Each structure stands twice: as structure tokens, then as C-alpha cells.
């Protein structure tokens, strides 16, 4: 066997070479940077989506017509009413109305919100340190309704805090809110975590699958396969540059949310990043899986965009409350990775929870990623067809 030298054989057994990986990553970056279309999807789409969702779903309200029905007429209610009047959110109408009149006004749509003090408000507050107040809002416009409720609750809480130290007793005013017509009142500012999940899902999955399928379509995969480069290394080399790009992408989304939309990140940024990297890996695995079963860039794009956008929108829970869905839909939502990521981001970003609050969701997401990645790697064809 003089035909092939030992040098050739040794080369065959060469271990995974970091140099090859680096060269591949470099190549991938060149390609992305030179492809205006990819760049546009990568960074244009998130910016447009965040801004569109940001302003379309904004729930800023001003000068809302508020009916206050003060059946107690004491110093406390007067102070609260003055506080409400002082804010720029409401134009107050103090006409004394019965409950039936209020409902009639709601039905006609002339009134969007009402605040009702019961007749024994002051008495309760002084004697038992506890009083109730009713807030009614028109739930057919859930965003506005929720905002109105939040504002009123905040004003009452503020008053309560003001009251407590002077009197020395812990006073409690319990606003009993009621949304007419839409008791759940979905559609809040929670959309940011949802949009994040949506964008990462689409961008990561689409770009990864398209870039692998492009190699197949242009024939370069043929050369890569007929080379010492191990087949599965092709997938790994694809995933790394897109992981880096997706992290950059995520940073853009976060910066936009914080600076353009004034979203406050309550929890740890580091945790948020780590969880997002995990989710990005999930999406990359999904993208690789899609690339295994598709042969053209268009199909890959269509599956990743259409096939994933709609389920993500519906089953993540940020657009439509999952609680109202039939059990089958609720079950489906449980297998959508974006659903778990959405829960994690909501907890970390909006509620400020630490890892102990999201470890279960994280574990589920890790499990899904491992399964997807294994299937993608196992199914990667080492030959054509």
C-alpha cells in the first residue's frame, strides 16, 4: 500500500480543528455582511417590529372621562378625588349617578370608567382601617381599561401611603376593580417579552435554515461533504456565527425596548441574557432541523417565517390569553419553545424574579433544545438525497 502515504492517513484522523471552525465562522460573517437581504431581515425586522408593536400597542391614556360617584362625601373621598383631579389622566365628572345609570352610560359608550365610593367609606376606614372602593372600566378596550385601572389604583395606593404614617394606623383601601365586558383584560404592556420571543424565533430559525439550505442549493454542500470536514461540523459551524449574530440582535432589541419604549428591566440583565442565549440555541436547532428536510431556500424561509410566526403569535400567550383557549390549544402551547421563553422573560424582565423563579421553565427549554439539536444532528444527511 504505497499508494497513499501515512501523511494522508494521519490527516484523515485529525481531530476537530479549531482553525477550520474559525475559517468557517469568518466565511459566514463575510457572507452575512455582504448579503443586504439577510442583514435587513436580521436587524431591520426586529427594529420595525419592536417599534410597530411598541406604538401600536401603546396604552398611554390622557383625559379619560371618569365618573365619580361619591356616596360617602367625607374628607377622605374628597382628598382622593382632588388627587385624581390633579393628575392629567382624567377629566372628572362628579354627577351623582346610580349604578343603573352608570351601566347605561357604559352601554352608550359615553363613559369609559367610573369610580364608586360606598356610603360608609369613611366609617369603614376609620373604624376598621379598611375600606373598599369600586373601579369600573370598559373592558371592550382592554388596553385602555387596564391602564385606567392601574392609574386609579396607583393614585389610591399613593393616598393610602400618605394617610398611614400621619394617623399611625395601617389603613387599607381596597380598590375592587371590575372590568365590564372583558373580565380578564388581556393585552397589556407585556407585549415586549412576546415580541422578543417572536423576533428571535423567526430571525434565528429562518436565517440558520436558509443559510444551510443555500449551501445545498448552490452546490457548495457537495464540496463540504467531500472534504475532511466532518459532516456534523458543518452544522456546528453554521450555528456559531448565527448564535453570535442573534446575540447582537437581542442586544439591539433590549436597547430599543429600554431606550425607545421605556421598558424597565426589573430583574438581572445577566440572567435575561443567559436565558435568551438558551432560547437562541433552541431556535438555531430548530433552524438546522428545518434545513434537513427542505431543499430550497424559499421553502426553508416559508416554513420558518409562516410556519413559526403564527403558532408563536397564537400560542405564546402574549396576544391572546391562553387561559381562554380550549384545552387542546393549551396543550399545544406547552410544546412551543417560545411559550416557555415568554414566561421566563416576563418573570425576569417585568416581575424581576431571579433564577429560582424560572428554573422550571429553563429546564423545559433546555430539554427541548437537547431534543431538537439531537434530532437535527442525527438527521443531518452525510450524503446527497
Amino acid at each position, binding site marked *: *500500500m504505497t*499508494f*497513499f502515504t501515512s501523511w*494522508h*492517513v494521519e*490527516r*484523515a484522523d*485529525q481531530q476537530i*480543528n479549531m*482553525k*477550520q471552525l*474559525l*475559517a*468557517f465562522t*469568518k*466565511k459566514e460573517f*463575510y*457572507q452575512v455582511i*455582504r*448579503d443586504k437581504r439577510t442583514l435587513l431581515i436580521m436587524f431591520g425586522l426586529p427594529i420595525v417590529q419592536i417599534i410597530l408593536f411598541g406604538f401600536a400597542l401603546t396604552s398611554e391614556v390622557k383625559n379619560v372621562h371618569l365618573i365619580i360617584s361619591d356616596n360617602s362625601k367625607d374628607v377622605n373621598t374628597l382628598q382622593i378625588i382632588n388627587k385624581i383631579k390633579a393628575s392629567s389622566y382624567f377629566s372628572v365628572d362628579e354627577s351623582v349617578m346610580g349604578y343603573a345609570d352608570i351601566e347605561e352610560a357604559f352601554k352608550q359608550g359615553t363613559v369609559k370608567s367610573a369610580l364608586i365610593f360606598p356610603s360608609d367609606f369613611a366609617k369603614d376606614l376609620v373604624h376598621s382601617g379598611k375600606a373598599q372602593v369600586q373601579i369600573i372600566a370598559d373592558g371592550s378596550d382592554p388596553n385602555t381599561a387596564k391602564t385606567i385601572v392601574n392609574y386609579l389604583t396607583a393614585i389610591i395606593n399613593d393616598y393610602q401611603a400618605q394617610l398611614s404614617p400621619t394617623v399611625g394606623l395601617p389603613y387599607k383601601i381596597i380598590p375592587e376593580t371590575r372590568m365590564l365586558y372583558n373580565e380578564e383584560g388581556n393585552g397589556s404592556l407585556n407585549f415586549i417579552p412576546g415580541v422578543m420571543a417572536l423576533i428571535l424565533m423567526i430571525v434565528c430559525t429562518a436565517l440558520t435554515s436558509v443559510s444551510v439550505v443555500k449551501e445545498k442549493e*448552490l*452546490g*457548495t454542500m*457537495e*464540496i*463540504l*461533504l*467531500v*472534504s*475532511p*470536514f*466532518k459532516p456534523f461540523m458543518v452544522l456546528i459551524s453554521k450555528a456559531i456565527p448565527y448564535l453570535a449574530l442573534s446575540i447582537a440582535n437581542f442586544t439591539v432589541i433590549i436597547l430599543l425596548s429600554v431606550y425607545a419604549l421605556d421598558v424597565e428591566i426589573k430583574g438581572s440583565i445577566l440572567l435575561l441574557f443567559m436565558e435568551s442565549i438558551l432560547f437562541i440555541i433552541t431556535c438555531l436547532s430548530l433552524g438546522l432541523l428545518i434545513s434537513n428536510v427542505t431543499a430550497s431556500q424559499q421553502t426553508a424561509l416559508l416554513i420558518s417565517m409562516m410556519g413559526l410566526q403564527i403558532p408563536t403569535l397564537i400560542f405564546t400567550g402574549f396576544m391572546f390569553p391562553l387561559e381562554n383557549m380550549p384545552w387542546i390549544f393549551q396543550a399545544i402551547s406547552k410544546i412551543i419553545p417560545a411559550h416557555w421563553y415568554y414566561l421566563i422573560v416576563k418573570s425576569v424582565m417585568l416581575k424581576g424574579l431571579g433564577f429560582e423563579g424560572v428554573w422550571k421553565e429553563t429546564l423545559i427549554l433546555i430539554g427541548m433544545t437537547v431534543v431538537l439539536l439531537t434530532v437535527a444532528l442525527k438527521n443531518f444527511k*452525510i*450524503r*446527497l*438525497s
Partner: protein
Amino acid sequence: MNAVTVKNITKTYDKGKVLAVDNISFEVKEGELFGLIGPDGAGKTSIFRILTTLLLADKGEASVAGFDVIKDYQSIRNNVGYMPGKFSLYQDLTVAENLSFFATVFGTTIEANYDLIKDIYDQIKPFSNRRAGKLSGGMKQKLALCCALIHKPLVLLLDEPTTGVDVVSRKEFWEMLKTLKKQGITILVSTPYMDEANLCERIALLQKGKIMSVDTPENIIKAFPYTLYGAKSDQIYKLLNDLRLNGQVESCYAFGEFLHVTLKEKQENGKKILRVIAEQNGHSNIWIEEIKPGIEDSFILLSGEQG
């Protein structure tokens, strides 16, 4: 030792409905420049893909550089240089970037085997900062050859490297192959151009997935059993039909501006016989000469016999 061995290989597509390669066997010797000659659809690409381990044959055995295409597929992938039929480099990378990328992926550097590609690379060097997609057809093929050679392969597998390339570049390309052969690299090349067959040491003529003949181009031409005549007149299409209808004529087909004609029986005065036939049919400006057959004549004859 054979660099490539193909033994009774059969390949079908669409669950056996389309027969692409039909029980083919041939061998390529170490250091040989071997050509697979045949029209589109003859099964050339399928053979290349089986040899490069990209496709699995339905039946038969094959080995490249001593490695079995199924068992040792990774060894084959490590040691062959492959140029697919379609230009398969990164169009959005420059010439230099493509070369350095493939060098790294193949676990080597441009410098390590520069002597091997120098002659070829020198020709595209002035364009090293140009994107590969913006190169001319000939340039693309030169770059692809450089990339296939960069790791000093034992066997070079080139699937229709000159298709879609201008005549001058085609010539240059074959010159390069000769130079590479001198350096001891075994080359298996396919082409639909019959005139390129003479540039190979040995060839296999392929038609509809079958090998019709394997030999040196000279021997294949020598084996042509008939005396071949070239014929021409003012009405060449009419002449074609007239000759075909004549009982003495074995075969007649158009070949460039001439007709290539053979007679059924070996005749001393074949030229005269043909001239008479042409004159009887009222042709003018008749030109008839005995000519040397080429590979294409053999090919047509063989496909007639075996098809």
C-alpha cells in the same frame, strides 16, 4: 494498483423507475488521465457522486484510492479532490477568500501546496480580490480546480469541468490537467465534448447509463470497422436523405458541414459509388473524400449497435 475501481455499479432514481447507471465496470490506473465521455443523461454525474460517496449505488462495488466508497467514505472524502458539474464555490466570497477557506477546511494552507496550484493560480491571481460570482466561466473553473487541488489529493474527480467554458479556456484547462498528471495525480474527468476524448489516456464511452467501450482513444478509433467518407453537395439536407434511402449505404449523418457516410460492404471504389448515387439524385458541387474516423463516429456507431 488501481486508483479507481468500479464493479457492476447500478444506480436508479425515483424508487427504481429511472435507471441512471446500468451495471457499469471500469478501472482507472494510478496516475492515469481517464475520461468518461458521453452526452447529457449518460450517467456521468451519478458515477461521480457514487465515487465521491455522495450517493449510494443500488448494486455493485466501487473504491477510490484503495478505499471502499461505503465503508471508508471518510477516507475517500479526505483524499480526493472533487469539482462538481455545477460551479460550487462561494460566489459572494473573493477568489482569495474562497481559496483560503477551502485550504483551511481541507486542513492545509495555501502555502503548503502552492507549487501544485501555482501555474493555475497565477492566471487568476490578478483577480484575487474579485468576487467568485463575477468571474468568467473559464476563470471560475480555474479557481474551482485550485480549490479542489489545494490539499494535494490522490485522485482528482472532475465532473464536466469544461462545460460552458470558451474554447481557449477549455484548451488551457486540458493543458493544466496534463501538467497535473505529470505530478502523479490520478485524474478522472467527464465531458460531453467528443473532441476532448483524444486528450485523455483512456476513455469510457457512456450512453444511457451503459459503458459501450473502454480503451485508449486511438484503439477505439482503430476499431472503427468501416471506411468513412465525408460528403458534401449544394443541397446537403437532400443529400443526407438521398444517401440514407440508398440500399448500399450503411449509415449517413450530418457532421458539421459534412456528411459522414459508411457503406454496407467494403468497397475499393467507395468514393465512386457515392458520387454516382449523388449524381443520380441530381446533386451539384459534389465533394466526396475518404476521411479518418473520430471518437464521435465510433460513439455513434456503438450507440447504434448497442442502443
